[in-house]
């Protein structure tokens, strides 16, 4: 299992370029690893745009079952969880 630590991008993720970089990093790891753990320690907040850009896109590409099996989100506090959920939710709504 590959561990991707987002600490260096913290404490907030608030730009498209950083969102792209994180998405590409996770996506590249999924090509060689069955599971990817994304460590969100030190990430205090994230623009909803970036949540959709990273996790919404991954959720759509993998589907809900594979997303659950292959992506582990570690050390996300309640607020960050809500932001990520909003991002995924919005990506799903738009895809329907």
């Amino acid at each position: 299992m590959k561990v991707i630590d987002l600490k260096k991008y913290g404490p907030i993720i608030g730009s498209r370029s950083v969102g792209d970089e994180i998405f590409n990093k996770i996506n590249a790891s999924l090509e060689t690893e069955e599971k990817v753990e994304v460590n969100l320690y030190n990430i205090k907040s994230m623009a909803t745009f970036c949540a959709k850009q990273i996790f919404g896109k991954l959720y759509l590409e993998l589907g809900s079952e594979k997303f659950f099996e292959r992506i582990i989100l570690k050390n996300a506090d309640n607020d960050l969880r809500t932001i990520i959920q909003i991002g995924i939710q919005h990506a799903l709504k738009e895809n329907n």
Partner: protein
Amino acid sequence: MNSINRLISAPKFFKAKYIIDFINRSEAIFSLKNKHENKFVLDLSRIQQCTMIGVLLIYKFIEFSVKNNCFNAPAFAMNDIVREAMEKYGFKPLIFSYIKDKKKAEREFRKLNVSITDEFIIAPQALLRNDKYSAETLNSKYLPKIEKYYSFDEKIVSMIFLCFSEVLLNFWEHAVDDTQSIIVANGNNSNLEIACADNGEGIISTLENSEIYTNRNNPDSVITKAVKKGVTSKSGTNHMGYGLWLIDEIVNRVGGRLHVYSEGGYYIREFGKVKNGKCGFWQGTIIYISLPLDQPITLADIEKPELDNKFNLKINWA
């Protein structure tokens, strides 16, 4: 340009309440690009109070007019109150470099620094587009200082950072024509103000192709709709139209203040009451937020019930 517009003065009490006054008085500069108008005076000598937002708008006015060659050898009159306010909020060297030698301005821009005492934190931060400096400095120096200052309450940090992330995203995504702007924060244990002003593409222009756009004669209506949930200029992209709505929700629930000005319109929420209307033209967007910190709320307080009730996302939170 008529004779009245050759003398632009600032409001006596240059604070959030009088932003509209200043916009009304200064809108002429946005039609003076490369006009090199003579005998122009910016009169700041009658100011009796100048707060953080006043200093920020003085900076943006001077930066825009110098960069765009609006005036030829303009005169600036200012009193000690203004000088002290510029000093207090960390803008003085930068503003004076624009007045005296604009080539030095970028160097001064990078010297903006966070100032912390036991009682308050004043934090101006340069936003330089296409420059790694801004992103790295924001996350490695600027935001950690704010986090440390408010470390006594994680919920305050979370609320402040959520506002920062949405204001910054808005700047990076929409103010594409503004290469040098500033976000500034000023706070103590009970209140925090955040302000960002840019001269890039404003809210009205960015929403021009969206379904809520009516016409340029109704900028107040467009701004008010832009604060509603799910309104975005960029449907089908990662834009969700949550940014302004989220900030407005937080401000409403904590009894704070949100001011948004752009291209002839404004939206103001103060202590639960909303007003909108038309004002002078400001190229770009001004966002001002004031957050009381005694009962902080975060996104989980706002959106959690809806998420729990309507969606069944499969996420492995370890």
